[in-house]
């Protein structure tokens, strides 16, 4: 049974990747699992300088979902390169540097700073719903999404994965735009914008009023979008959105994802990734699948 995959040139021991924002910088989870068995780690979104994030309540639970408005708090590229990356070097796991910017130029500078040995790919976040300048503002307009992608490509030799927002009418338009601008792969979906209200106080639960919804609540939306984007572009896809089990991961791959990311499941239990990876392997074995790659884009209609 083969679980290894190659995703835009990166060799991975499994198609199950730790999703940005739910796995810190990786080393925090070294005692919860063998990091060497994780497909890849997409680290928490990095800015050129540290970001402080949003004020007030940053997380809320909703039915089968989690709403967050962290606001991309992160220690910045320099701390990542000097503190976290050297500590990750003793592990045999590809590191994907997820990155954010406040304007097109800053995306380029951040990409350049992160193009170092030890980083296997860049994942460009143009889809965070919780920041005013940056994030989703770049991911909802195909032209701007293409500009950001082109700017990042100009500033790096690493494979560039562009992470798309589901908060658009037609995700295939953005997917095609970033493919044309040179993206090596697409990851989707980031969180869906939502909100929670406390009826007793008539106030929003979250400090930022709105937040990004993740977890099983958004899985049907994510599956639909992966399937649509698979038909629209030729580059590889990393699918995510509410994957809690190995069967969920298989569904994303069947819909057209070459790899998957697990996020909210890690918030629920820090050891979710090895469990889900094991379940995916068992699912393959139970279904006479000898190579996990062979299930990609096999939806029968």
């Amino acid at each position, binding site marked *: 049974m083969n679980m290894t995959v190659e995703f835009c040139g990166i060799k991975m021991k499994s198609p199950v990747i730790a999703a940005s924002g739910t796995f810190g910088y990786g080393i*925090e989870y070294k005692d919860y699992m063998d990091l060497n068995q994780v497909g890849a780690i997409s680290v928490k979104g990095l800015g050129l300088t540290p970001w402080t994030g949003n004020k007030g309540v*940053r997380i809320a*639970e909703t039915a089968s979902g989690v709403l967050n408005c962290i606001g991309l708090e992160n220690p910045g590229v320099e701390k990542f390169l000097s503190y976290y990356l050297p500590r990750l070097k003793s592990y045999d796991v590809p590191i994907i540097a997820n990155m954010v910017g406040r304007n097109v130029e800053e995306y380029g500078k951040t990409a350049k700073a992160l193009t170092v040995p030890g980083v296997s790919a860049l994942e460009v976040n143009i889809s965070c719903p919780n920041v005013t300048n940056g994030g989703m503002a770049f991911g909802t307009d195909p032209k701007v999404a293409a500009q950001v992608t082109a700017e990042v490509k100009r500033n790096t030799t690493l494979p560039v994965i562009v992470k798309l927002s589901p908060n658009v009418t037609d995700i295939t338009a953005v997917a095609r735009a970033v493919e044309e601008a040179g993206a090596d792969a697409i990851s989707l979906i980031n969180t869906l914008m939502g909100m929670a209200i406390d009826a007793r106080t008539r106030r929003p639960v979250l400090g930022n009023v709105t937040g990004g919804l993740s977890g099983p609540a958004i899985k049907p939306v994510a599956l639909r979008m992966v399937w649509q984007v698979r038909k629209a572009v030729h580059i590889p896809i990393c699918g995510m959105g509410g994957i809690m089990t190995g069967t969920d991961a298989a569904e994303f791959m069947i819909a057209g994802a070459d790899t998957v990311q697990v996020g909210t499941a890690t918030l629920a*239990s*820090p050891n979710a990734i090895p469990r889900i990876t094991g379940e995916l392997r068992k699912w393959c074995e139970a279904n006479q699948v000898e190579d996990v790659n062979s299930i990609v884009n096999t939806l029968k209609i």
Partner: protein
Amino acid sequence: MTGMVEKGIIIRHEKMGPDIWRMVISLPLTAKKAKPGQFIHVKINDNSRLLRRPISIAGTAPGKGLVEILYRVVGSGTQLMSEMKEGDTIDCLGPLGTSFTIPEEGEILGVGGGVGIAPILFTARRAKPGQMTVVIGGRNKDEVFWKDLFPKTLKQLIVTTDDGSYGIKGFTVSVLPDVMKQGTVRQVAVCGPGIMMKKTAEIAGEYGVPCEVSLERRMGCGTGTCMACVCDRKAGGHYKVCSDGPVFDAAEVVL
């Protein structure tokens, strides 16, 4: 501090007060490692509820492998938790976070309000006989069940109620100056409502005694990575309550 995912059997589960429940869980690994002030991150037995609930440890019996918690039913998640039966299995992540300082020499003053009494109780159970004075406060006599849980070896246990239906009428902080005046307290530990912790830290500060506070926030991962449960540092920036805390030196955080 890295915790462990440990599934344990509920040995005892009982209602203690109007909305407070006590649960004793068989968690041998957690029981061995836990220190006063640390918490377990408890999974609700319903797959549609994804986030764990951070709950202070109230005591352990390492020899028997038991962990005791006291929690308040505040929403539908803790409501479901309260419906669990003895013999059920509960999924816990812990022990997590920092702990209260118990000095080798000198006395500790523990101050607890509401369900925040739980980590003070754990501290009292680990303190040496005669080493700790405890002041606890509740709304009324329905909440004074807490006093019976404390060891008899405390130097003193003072109970206040908001309505005067038991013990001293008033707030915990109003009796603190009398305790501090004796000049024997070397360390203060407090957990409770924000205003109570702020006032306690101020009073400790007036007597030049270090004070540790245990903060509460809406929490995500519990492992220090999601950045949901941050609090403000006095020096600027944030601390993560789940992993830099929940117990902090009062001088380092904005209360």
